[in-house]
């Protein structure tokens, strides 16, 4: 397979002015340059483009480099083409392409995303609660590093414990993904095992037939479980968040530069973004219970 196609998830409306293409989580899902450029060309003049990249090994870093070279050659600085980075090595590559804007991905915007956190029992005023509601980006040296790499936007998930961060004060713009947030991810994949010989199952980096592009699985706990809609999507566990959680987090962002990215499935490699928050709120009301 060469990669995702934009028609996997139709543009929700005119206010959705940017398309995301790619996976935050798996190197195997990196699109071929041709598939990426096809999507980029299709969007030209209609919407801005964000390439999403996962953590990678050296071979993957080379592949990302080729993608960035192709994208950079096709993009003009005013196009505001972005690259979401989930790997410090990839961030270094993006810096070498001045026409591309780096965005800090969810794997590097570290915070607890544990669906088991007892949100209702947290003391809103306690330091322990603030620590749960904040991420790595609240650290001033971390912010300085982001500035030095030209990173101004950081990506977040809805979290059951809520957020307590002042992005305007940090000089950062927040992006909230909805309704699916990541919980955990790795290099070993349950779905890859469906197509692998027994001796390669759960082997890191073994050849993969991308069964994750055909299947996903809902997860339930054999024991009494928290009210969490968990899905194994490829190598990642995602949580489908309730509207109340997303709305609460969105309200807490309170940033003039906030953006919302939505996808219609936890495994979606195509997503749409808007900075028009009423449109985002409308989509959430219509599609999330």
């Amino acid at each position, binding site marked *: 397979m060469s990669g995702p196609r934009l028609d996997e998830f139709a543009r929700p409306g005119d206010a959705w002015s940017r398309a995301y293409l790619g996976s935050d989580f798996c190197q195997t899902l990196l699109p071929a340059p041709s598939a990426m450029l096809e999507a980029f060309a299709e969007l030209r003049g209609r919407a801005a483009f964000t390439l999403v990249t996962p953590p990678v090994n050296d071979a993957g870093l080379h592949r990302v480099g080729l993608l960035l070279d192709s994208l950079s050659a096709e993009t003009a600085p005013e196009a505001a083409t972005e690259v979401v980075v989930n790997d410090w090595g990839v961030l270094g590559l993006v810096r070498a392409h001045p026409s591309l804007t780096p965005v800090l991905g969810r794997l590097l915007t570290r915070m607890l995303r544990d669906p088991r956190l007892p949100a209702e029992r947290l003391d809103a005023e306690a330091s322990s609660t603030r620590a749960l509601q904040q991420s790595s980006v609240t*650290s001033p040296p971390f912010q300085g590093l982001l500035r030095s790499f030209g990173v101004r936007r950081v990506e977040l998930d809805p979290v059951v414990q809520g957020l307590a961060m002042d992005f305007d004060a940090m000089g950062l713009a927040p992006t909230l993904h909805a309704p699916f947030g990541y919980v955990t991810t790795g290099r070993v994949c349950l779905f890859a095992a469906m197509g692998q010989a027994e001796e390669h199952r759960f082997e890191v980096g073994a050849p993969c037939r991308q069964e994750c592009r055909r299947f996903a699985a809902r997860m339930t706990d054999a024991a009494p479980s928290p009210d969490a809609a968990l899905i194994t999507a490829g190598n990642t566990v995602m949580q489908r968040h309730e509207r109340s959680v997303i709305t609460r987090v969105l309200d807490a962002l309170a940033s003039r530069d906030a953006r919302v990215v939505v996808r219609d499935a936890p495994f979606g490699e195509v997503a749409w973004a808007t900075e028009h928050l009423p449109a985002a709120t409308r989509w959430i009301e219509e599609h999330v219970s």
Partner: protein
Amino acid sequence: MQDAIGVRAPKIGIASPLSDPDEVELLVSNGATEFYCGVAPSAWAARYGASWLNRRSRGRANLPSMEHVANLVEKVHAHGLPVRVTLNAPFYTGEQLADVLALAGELTAAGADGLIVSDVGLILALRERGVAADITLSSMAAMRNSGAAGFFRDLGVTRMVLPRHVRMSEVASLRAHLPDVALELFVLNDGCVYEEGHCATTHALGTFCLTEWRYALDRRDGAAPTDDERAAFDEAVDDYRRWKWHVNNCGSTFSDRGLPNGPCGLCAIWDLCDLGVSCLKIVGRDSPTVRKVRSLRLVKTIVEQVAGGGTREAAAEYAQGLRDTPELCGSGFMCYYRDAVPTARGPRSPAGCSPSEP
């Protein structure tokens, strides 16, 4: 097994977990060449609750106070060996950073030889404040390519612990791109189902990945899965549960010979030495002393075998024979480096394991 340990010390180090000063003598006599430990001051726990100071704050994984750290460091230094301390939470918030920096200063004053860190903000802050400690990059940073390694080297990191989930070919690539970066590799015990550095759950609420999930298969196109697809998925899930059991130290068992079962890279030690890896990491700060001791004996025995000039195949065969659990080794599910399958490479000692005087 003690008889199998040679007298020559190889250049490659063996990092042992340490959680009690009383373990030092025993672990040194069984092959530890360096130590790592953690501390969990009660003031941190009281203030930050589930946001632990390091990745393993439960039970006996940590020393309870700086006084205990100082005592432990003194005992380790008496043997002329170093000890590093973990400050490797996945991240620290701005509010936490001042507290972590103060602790880092106290640890350095207590004689700690280095800090094991994953948070970029903390690495930068330690450098900016001039805290005089070597910084080892924790596996929690999930660093796996030469670009990222260069990034962390430029931040002042002197050694990097690679993540658990890495292929030998990737280690080789890192060595080729950045020969000046010291690498530390996992070699025994305590696997992770996911990439620990990218896991956003907390062990403070229990181990998320070891939950016995039930799965309901869906097709992305919305159609019902066929019987064949369900059967293939069910088989994968059954194997996945079996693999998770191996990752969890085979249910925390020992072999009939009393050796610890679980994630293992003994067969790969020849390759790790050959690649010039600096140190082999044994996991398990919260393990009982007996598991630490037996883990050390296993690793040291293989290192000495390799240093003695054996072939790659002989070292792997010897490693598997020591534990004598063909049913576990044969599955490949215990292997840290499954791609390190021995092939004929000639009867020589790998470059990184040439013997040196003790």
